[in-house]
């Protein structure tokens, strides 16, 4: 085994131990799971929430609390991270506050994006910020599909199942999202 493979299998084994102990009620073990997956889940929630920091934090907490409650249902036939991720997607999609917030967010969102991406000293930081802002400004359904498909790697049939829209609608929303982003990035004055 190469060292990379070794690390990966050790990581899984460790995580499985945490999951088992968390299932039995061990909070320290659950905290390890939290620390291990928090940034990923937060990225998902933050983007799905359209860059609303407070709402995203709420969603992250909600997702982990729900994971704790449903841990007994996790059977280990997928990776814990995959299961957790799906659960978080459902938490976000079923929270209607996100849809309502969209109108208010436009003004405050700019600052949120800036602050969240601070510390990114990459050369492409500027484009990244514009892109995140463009994504955050998308209409809710288009944004959800773009985030889930292009960033989080779900397939259209999975997205359709999770969102309750038809597979065709998912594809249409993705197309629409990419088109809108291109327009916004071309001319930042557009909406």
């Amino acid at each position, binding site marked *: 085994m190469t060292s990379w493979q070794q690390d990966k299998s050790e990581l899984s084994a460790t995580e499985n131990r945490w999951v088992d102990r968390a299932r039995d009620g061990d909070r320290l073990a659950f905290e390890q799971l939290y620390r291990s997956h928090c940034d990923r889940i937060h990225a998902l929630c933050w983007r799905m929430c359209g860059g609303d*920091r407070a709402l995203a*934090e709420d969603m992250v907490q909600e997702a982990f609390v729900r994971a*704790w409650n449903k841990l007994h249902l996790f059977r280990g036939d997928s990776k814990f991270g995959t299961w957790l991720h799906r659960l978080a997607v459902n938490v976000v999609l079923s929270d209607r506050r996100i849809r309502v917030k969209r109108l208010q967010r436009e003004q405050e969102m700019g600052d949120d994006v800036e602050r969240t991406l601070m510390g990114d000293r990459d050369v492409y930081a500027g*484009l990244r910020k514009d*892109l995140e802002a463009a994504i955050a400004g998308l209409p809710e359904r288009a944004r959800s599909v773009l985030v889930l498909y292009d960033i989080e790697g779900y397939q259209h049939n999975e997205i359709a199942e999770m969102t309750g829209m038809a597979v065709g609608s998912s594809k249409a929303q993705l197309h629409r999202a990419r088109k809108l982003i291109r327009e916004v990035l071309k001319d930042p004055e557009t909406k």
Partner: protein
Amino acid sequence: MKESELQNAIDSLPSNIKPQRDLWPGINARLGSVEKGDHAHHKTVWWRTPAMAAAVLLALTGGIFIGRGLDTSPAFEPSQTVLEYAFLGTVAATEREYQAAFRELVPLDYSGLQLEGAEPDALRGSWEDLLQTETSLLAALREYPSNIYLNEKLLDLRSQQLQFVKQLALLEQSNWRRT
């Protein structure tokens, strides 16, 4: 911007974004307010506050949601066929499964449902009709435990009761999501 440029830009977005503050304390605090429960029982935890938990207990002791089960094992009649024997056995097993499934679902009282005006009463009325049927059917089965038709009706009823409870569950879930 070309499609491929956009794709590259999106691909380069980070998949991890650290939150600006540690969210664990908030999560930890909320873990405490919910009973972990015995994982062997796989309870669907629907009650969210102690008040609701008390309401569920009340509903249970009031017999509002607990159904009753077959309390006699089938006494096979000599005139019955092998298929009929097998069927009666199946019904008995299904009864046990039903009681178990039903206890798992254990719905709430209606206060959590945020339903409009007449609805809780209408639904309660429907549930009572189901329970009324259950009572009559079980009484008949006590007298004629091997009656195939009655056993078939019992299976039908269980399926209707489960259907009712599942619908209530869906209502409750969609309601919860909205609040």
